[in-house]
């Protein structure tokens, strides 16, 4: 290395050398360190919000931290969590999927009809998952191959279409009965985890969420496909120039999001022991809110599995807390709105600090 450096030194005009040598040893300035701390704090945004909520609620309510209530929160948040993880993939690529709620309803209705008519758990589960996946595939194809200007359009169309189809297939009625295995993952509790007596407190649905989350972390951090999702979201133009199959990546995230809507449909069916054509109504808004509270950016390229889950938990904990405190349930919606604004304001502040950081780099590191 030193030999090589010597050669360069000989060819380069003298006055250009000192800055390079300096940069290698320049210690970070105090301002630099201050911004690093501020940045770390702002990046901890979503978990910090969740932590504050938990601390405040545990002070205000005795039951909040009881295992039974924690189990309830986990169970109630499971559907939002799974939907949010699917939505995350889409949002990272600068997209949005408005159809996940309707997709959930449709998948649940199809699953319940297949169970009623065929009596096969395997067929019913496969049908629900396949319906969700197919809806996602249609979304992706409409957006990419149909060249619709923004994913808002095809998924908005799908929101109404899938919802209409769910109502049509079910004759606007809830179809009672689901396979026992579906009932178990949606409503069951694991008795072998101690603390909840004979029935247990830890919901099986939370295990499903955990499994989905682990797979998602592996995919987004470990697989080339996961890297491509972030690359396409960060700079689609450059992704294309670098030979990343942008179209296939875009279609694939809608397929994955649809599949997860199918998983969420199974959880919902299990919880209510039925397939209802309106069971997913407005769930897309919760999913999108969770992802945004979790710090993902609509500008694309940013967002993580853990933070999206945190966002979903923030919404669930808030609802649960307001419930426990006996506050009018309509406040839940107002509070959710407020948290969205706070979370995004924190994100704006983070962007500001990052720009400061960057200009400081130009001064200290050159």
């Amino acid at each position, binding site marked *: *290395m030193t030999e*090589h*450096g010597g*050669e*360069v030194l000989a*060819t*380069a*005009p003298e*006055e*250009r050398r000192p*800055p*390079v040598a300096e*940069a*290698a040893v320049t210690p*970070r300035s105090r301002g630099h360190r201050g911004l690093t701390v501020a940045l770390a704090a702002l990046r901890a945004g979503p978990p910090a919000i969740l932590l504050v909520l938990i601390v405040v609620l545990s002070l205000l309510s005795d039951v909040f931290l009881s295992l039974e209530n924690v189990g309830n929160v986990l169970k109630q948040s499971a559907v939002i969590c799974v939907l949010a993880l699917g939505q995350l993939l889409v949002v990272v690529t600068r997209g949005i999927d408005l159809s996940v709620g309707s997709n959930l309803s449709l998948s649940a209705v199809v699953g319940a009809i297949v169970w009623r008519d065929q009596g096969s758990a395997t067929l019913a589960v496969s049908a629900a998952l396949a319906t969700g996946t197919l809806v996602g595939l249609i979304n992706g194809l409409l957006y990419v191959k149909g060249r619709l200007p923004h994913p808002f359009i095809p998924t908005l169309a799908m929101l109404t279409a899938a919802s209409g189809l769910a109502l049509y297939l079910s004759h606007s009625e809830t179809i009672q009965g689901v396979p026992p295995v579906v009932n178990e993952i949606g409503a069951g509790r694991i008795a072998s985890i101690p603390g909840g007596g004979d029935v247990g407190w830890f919901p099986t649905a939370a295990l499903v969420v955990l499994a989905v989350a682990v797979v998602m972390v592996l995919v987004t951090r*470990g*697989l*080339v*496909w996961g*890297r*491509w999702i*972030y*690359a396409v*979201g*960060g*700079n689609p*133009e*450059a*992704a294309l*120039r*670098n*030979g*990343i*199959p942008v179209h*296939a*990546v875009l279609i*694939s995230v809608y397929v994955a999001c649809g599949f997860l809507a199918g998983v969420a449909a199974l959880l919902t069916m299990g919880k209510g022991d039925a397939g209802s054509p309106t069971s997913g109504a407005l769930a897309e808004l919760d999913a999108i809110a969770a992802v945004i509270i979790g710090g993902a950016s609509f500008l*694309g*390229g*940013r967002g993580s599995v853990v933070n999206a889950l945190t966002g979903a938990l923030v919404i669930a904990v808030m609802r649960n807390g307001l419930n426990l405190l006996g506050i009018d349930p309509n406040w839940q919606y107002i509070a959710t709105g407020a948290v969205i604004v706070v979370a995004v304001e924190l994100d704006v502040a983070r962007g500001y600090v*990052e720009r400061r*950081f*960057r*200009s400081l*780099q*130009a001064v200290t*590191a*050159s």
Partner: protein
Amino acid sequence: MTALASGADPTRPVLEVRDACKRFGAVVALDGVTLDVAAGEVLALLGDNGAGKSTLIKAISGVHRLDSGSVTLDGTDITGATAMTVRAHGVETVYQDLALFDNLDPAANFFAGRELARPAWLPRGLRLMRHRAMGERTAELLDRLQVRLPDLDAVVALMSGGQRQAVAVARAVAFSSRLVILDEPTAALGLRESARVLDLVHRLKDNGVAVILISHSMDQVMAVADRALVLRRGRSVGQTVPTTENHRQLVSWIVGATDARAV
């Protein structure tokens, strides 16, 4: 990785462009331009706005297709090849927008679209990334080019203009590049950062890479270029070794003063 400087042979050009012509409707953008660049040589491309510099580099990198003329790389005719094919032949262009992934770290930027991953029998997208191998290769390359970054794990968005430029240039040479085209690499940079980028150009040269440099700064051209070619209205109007003595000559070629063809 690129061959080291010892192999630089000025008699055997890496790139040869012959009689390149390109018109856009009634506008003649290139009118019979001929140039060549050898390994380890820095050719500065000078000219006023609209002189044809951008069209020329886009024709070389496969973005534009020439109406007539030829582009040859290491003796292989690449006239009319697509941008992807030209890149596969080892020609990398760093445009002013840098085309970086701001949300990813330098290693992810280097390997975007060509991630090191296994096992090979799986489809590309389903392979597991080899994070450590990519990190090590990145650190090696940055070390070889003497690019210092405060934090290799930080996303590119957090870096200064000069550091980003350095990452973009390093990425261009990361994959056995023969020719790197730099489009005004210092346009958005301050003095010290500009100096560092010019240092980097020197190191590309030392590594046997042929460089075409577009710049408006005559000082920079004199500092790093072995040769300067001046374009004016789509024609090449003069070529010389840029020195302080012929500074005025170069300027008069650029602006088209009456004695432009005197030398």
